[in-house]
């Protein structure tokens, strides 16, 4: 009887522990994230993943994580992944872990993160009321409209040997 009880407790704790340790599901942080054939930025692109796509992390090599996603296995630049589910909180949970501390933010952030565009009417009304110049208001709108093209950014990183292209 005693053996049975100990076995039960062992199995119970063992199960709880392993289920937490082996939880290696991470999430894609940005849309158009490349899933590549090798752990190299210039290797073949197997596909592009959308923001929030869950991936199973299988291993690591340099700046890349080996992942399994949408039935394919490939490599993703590690800063394109986050441990935190998009519906949870913001921040990437610090991939390097050295600087520590996750921030608690409202769950709405992830949902709105990339969709809130334009100067809020509350902000604009307040700025007008306080006598801010129309040029200043327009400059903020212009700033918000400016979008860095994904391909141009990738080329910029490649030319500078930065990001995934860094040696």
């Amino acid at each position: 009887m005693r053996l049975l009880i100990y076995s039960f407790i062992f199995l119970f704790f063992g199960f709880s522990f392993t289920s937490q340790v082996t939880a290696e599901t991470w999430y894609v942080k940005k849309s158009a994230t490349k899933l590549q054939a090798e752990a190299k930025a210039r290797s073949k692109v197997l596909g592009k993943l959308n923001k929030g796509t869950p991936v199973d992390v299988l291993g690591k090599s340099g700046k890349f994580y080996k992942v399994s996603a949408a039935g394919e296995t490939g490599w993703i630049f590690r800063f394109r992944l986050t441990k935190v589910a998009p519906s949870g909180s913001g921040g990437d949970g610090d991939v390097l872990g050295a600087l520590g501390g996750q921030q608690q933010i409202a769950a709405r952030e992830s949902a709105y993160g990339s969709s809130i565009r334009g100067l809020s009417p509350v902000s604009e009304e307040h700025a007008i009321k306080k006598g801010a110049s129309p040029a200043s208001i327009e400059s903020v709108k212009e700033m918000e409209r400016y979008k860095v093209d994904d391909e141009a950014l990738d080329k910029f990183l490649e030319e500078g040997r930065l990001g995934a292209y860094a040696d």
Partner: protein
Amino acid sequence: MKTKFIILCFLSVLFWAIPSHSFNFGNILKEVEKSTRPPEKTQPSKEKTKPTQSPAQSSEQNSGQDGGLISLGDSLGLFDKKTSKFLKQSVNTLKSLQPIAYEEEKAIGGRLAVEVFNRYGGAYNDPELLNYINLVGQSVADVSSRSDINYHFAILNTEFPNAFATPGGYVFVSIGLIRMIENEAELAGVLAHEVAHIARKHALQTLQRSRSLQGVSSLTLTVMDKDPGLFDKLIDEVSNVLFTKGLDKNLEFEADKYGREFAYRTGYYPGALKRFIQKLGASKKNQGSIFSSTHPTSRERYNLLQKSSSRYKKASLYPTLGKRFKVAIKR
């Protein structure tokens, strides 16, 4: 034996359940308040014509409601006046710790961004340079600890060396500061420092700790829209911090540390920010500028970065991209 078995099973379930369920003290407080607050009377017609309350009035009302359970304890004679006051203050402080959502953060940051253009020379007109600043800025923002929001970068038309970040993703750098920079790694360090302020929500942290917001339980756009005085107060408070007093020294040091990390993650030489800070400290242009009055001394910043630089062992192998920078700024 049976009892032991039951206890062991209970403990096992308990140990399993604790890590998988987190507590939100703010929600608990809300629930406690709900349960002790008298039901609200529905008077829609009156509500429509009701004049807007001043922040002070609403704050007073809130503090009355906040202490629901405490007031109950008061009336039952459980607390003396001093304890009751302390508990009410504690409840208000805890409530002010509720995080500000992104939508509201962006409204605050957007309004402050208008203020930045208004105060510091407006936008500098050079589309090519702006594109370059955006590419460098976006590169460091993409590897930051908060890369899931949109960042916006702009150049200010002032010769004073300045850089700002307002909540929600707005980053500014003056043309005067750009002219002091020697390579792309330094520029990345400066922009990453500003991105770190946003990623770590430094201005919002300061706002949430602000005494003037005590008693305000939620900062939603609806609340701000209904109470323009509250939005006024928020903007005044953050403006004063960003443009006059400066953030807490430790937050600046943290932004230096994180900024260097983000630039390093991007692949830039991690010592570049430290070098630039040193150069800024020695510059006459910086003396008496808003930048120097709102930041800790360059020596303090340099020394702190120096202390933790051993983390970056192969730092010298990383590029500074001086040539590309010089081409971009047509030097």
